[in-house]
C-alpha cells in the first residue's frame, strides 16, 4: 500500500463549497480509467457541491457535475486550495 501524504485528505472528508485540488487516485487502473474519462485527474481543481447525507456526493470537476458514491470518493485524495 502506498503511503498517502498526511496533508492530503480523502474526498469523502471534503467540505461543501471549498475548493480542492486532486492529488492522488488510488483505485485500480480499471476504475481510474473511468474517473479519468470524467475529468478526474491529478492537478485538476475540484469542488464539492452537495453532500447527500451519508450517501453519494456531487462534485464539479472539469466543468462537469459528477455524482460519486462514498466508496468511489474514498479512493480520491485531495488537498485544499487556499
Amino acid at each position, binding site marked *: 500500500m502506498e503511503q498517502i501524504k498526511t496533508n492530503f485528505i480523502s474526498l469523502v472528508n471534503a467540505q461543501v463549497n471549498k475548493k480542492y485540488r486532486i492529488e492522488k487516485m488510488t483505485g485500480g487502473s480499471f476504475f481510474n480509467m473511468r474517473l*479519468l*474519462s*470524467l475529468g478526474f485527474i491529478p*492537478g485538476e481543481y475540484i469542488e464539492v457541491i452537495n453532500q*447527500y447525507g451519508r450517501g453519494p456526493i456531487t462534485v464539479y470537476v472539469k466543468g462537469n*457535475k*459528477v*455524482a460519486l*458514491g462514498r466508496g468511489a470518493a474514498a479512493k480520491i485524495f485531495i488537498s485544499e486550495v487556499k
Partner: protein
Amino acid sequence: MPNNNKNNIIKEFTIALAGSPNSGKTTIFNNITGSRQHVGNYPGVTVEHKTGRRKYKDYVINVVDLPGTYTLTAYSMEELVARDYIINKKPEVLVNVVDSSNLARNLYLTTQLIELSVPMVIVFNMADILKKNVDNINLELLSHLFGAPIVLTIGNKNEGMDKLLDMAIKVYERKYTEKKVLIKYGDEIENEIIKLENLLQLKSDSLKQFNFRWLSIKLLEQDKEVLKYLKNVSDENFYNNLQKLLNNSLSHIKNVMRDSPEVIIAEARYGFINGALKEAIIEKKNNEISISDRIDQVLINKVLGLPIFIFIMWVMFQIVFKLGDYPVNWLGSGLNKFTDLLSKVIPEGLLKSLLIDGIIGGVGGILVFTPKIMLLFIFIAVLEDSGYMARAAFIMDRIMHKIGLHGKSFIPLLIGFGCTIPAYMSGRTLENKSDRLITMHINTFMSCGGRLPIYILFASVFFPKNSGNVIFSIYLIGIIMAIAMAKLLRATRFKGEAEPFVMELPPYRVPTIKGVLIHMWERTWLYIKKAGTVILALSILMWVLFTFPMIGNHYSEDYNLQLKNLNNSYLSAKISKDFYDSEVLKIQKEMAVEKIEYSAAGRIGHFVEPIFKPLGFDWRLSLSSLAGIAGKEVVVSTLGTLFSITKSEKNPVDFKNSIAKQFNPLIGYNFMLFSLLYFPCIASLAVFKREAGTKEMIFQIGFTLSLAWVVSLIVYQIGRLFI
C-alpha cells in the same frame, strides 16, 4: 447528356457517429436519418445497434449510431462495442459528436479517436451554448490542431446537418485533408511505446487492422481486452515476451513517474486539449450559477430530493395506470366487438375456437395493454432525455447501497411494477455484471401489471372490505422479498461490493418531442413484437392443450340425453322457464369441466396437483398457475374457463361465488402470494435469456419457483393452524 454522366453515379459510404452519452449524438442521428432507422443488437451483446440511411446529393450515406461512450477503454460493453466497430468495420468517415458546452472534458474522447487513424469529422454540437460561453473561437486553428475538420451544429434545432454531411463527403472524397496529429505522452511513455510497437511489429500479419501505436498505448493503460485479444492471436512464446516487456515498462514508468501509466497518459491528453483550447478560444468570464445548478439545488436537495422524486414517480404511475385505463378500455371494447363480429362470420368449429379463444384471447389480451406501455415509455424517455434519470439514481443510491445494489438499479426495479420485460432491458445501464444480474433476478418480485388482475379477483372475493390493503400488502411483501433476496444473492452467488457509484449529472435539457417519440417507439415495438411471436406461439399451444384430446362421447353421464329430456319437459310445460334455464346451465358447466379435465391441460393439472396440494391448491389452481407461465394475465382467464364456463353465460358474480365456495381466505391469499413470487411470464424469460444468458435464465426459473413454493408452503401450513 454525356457531360452529366459523372454526376449521376450514386456513391455509397458509411459514417459512424461516436460521442459521449449526453453529446446530442442520437439527436443528430435522428435528424440525419429521419425515420429510416433500424435498431438491432450487436451480435452476442445487449448493446443496441442503430443504423439508418440517408440519400444526400449524389450519395447514399449509411449512418451508424455507435453507443455513447466517454472513452474507448474496456470499462463497459458500450465502449468495447464502439471501439471494436471502429477498428474492425473501419467506417469511411468517423463523426465525433462533441458537446461543445464542455469542450475540455468532451474532447478527451476525441484525443483517443484520432489515434485510431480513421478519417474523421469533429462536430461541435450545441453550438448555441458554445457561442454564449466564448467570446471568440478559431475553428480553423482547432481543426488543424486536432487533425480533423470541425463543423458547428445545433442538434435540437436541426441546424448544421447539411454542413456536417457536406464535410463528411469532402473527407470521404479526400478533398479535405489535415495533417495527422500525434499526441505525445512524454519521453518515458514514448520510449515504452516504441519498444512495444517494435515487438508488435513481429506479429503484424495477424494484427493488420490495428494501429500499433494505439495498441501499445492500450497495453500501457492495462486494457484487459486488448491483452486478451493479443493472447488469442499469438503463440505462447510471443505472448510471454510481450508480457515480460509490458511488465518491465509498467514498473519502470511507475518508478520514474511515481504515478500509474494510465494517469500519466490521461494527463497528457488533457494537457493537449487545454493547450489547444487556450490557443484557439477566448473564453468569457462568468461566475453565474447556471440554470442546471439552480434546478439541482432543489431537485437533489438533501431534504427535498427524495420527496420530490417520490412525487414524480407517483405522478408517473397515476398517469400510466389511471389515464392509461381509457385507451386500454377502448381497445378492449373494440377487440370485443371485433370478436363478436368474427364469431358471427366464422362457422362453429375448431378454427373458430382457435381464432377466438386461442389467438385473440391470448395475443389480444396482451396487445390491449400497449397504450399503457407506451405511456410508461414516454415518461421514461422524458426523464432520461431531460437529465433527471441520473439524479434519480443519485438520490436512490444511498438506499439501494444498503441492500447491496447500485443507485442505477432503482429504475429497472421501478419499471418492473409496470412490466418486467422493459425492466430487464433497462438493466443494461448497469455496467457491472453482478449488479445487473442481481437487479434482474429480484425484478420478478416487483409485482408487474399482469399480476394485478389476479390480486383484484382474489382480494375482492375473500377480502371484500379490505381489498385495497390486501393488495398493498402483496406489493409490500414483494419489495421485502426483493430486498432479502438481493442480500442473499450478494452474499452467495454474486460476491463482492457493488460497483463504486460514479455518474455524470448532465445539464438539464428540454427533451425534443421527436427524440422522446423515437425512444418510446423503439421499446414499444419490442413489446409488440414479443406479443406477435412468443405469446402467439404460446397462446396456440395453450389452446391445443385445453382442446385436445377432445372428449367426444366420453362424458361420465349422458348429458346430451339429459338436456334433451329437459328440453322435452320444458316444451311439454312440465317445468318452469327459470328451472329449465338453471338446470341447463348446471349441465353445461359440468360438461365444460369434464371437457377440460379430459383435455391434456386438465390431465396436466391433475398430474401436478400433488405438488401444489401442500400449498392448499387444488388441480384448478395448479393448472391456472401453470397456464400463468404464458403470462400472468392468463391465470385469471384460465380460472374463468375453469369456474364460470360456457361462453354464453359468463356471469362474473357466479364466477366469484364458485371461487368463494371452493376455497377459503387463506388459500386465496396464498395463491396471490404464489403468483407474486414465481417468474412473470415466458416472454420475460426469453428476454432474460437474451440479456443474461441461458444459465442465468435457468437459475431464475429454479430460484423463483422454489422460493414461491417454499413461502406458500410455510404460509399455508402455519396459517392452517389458526383457522
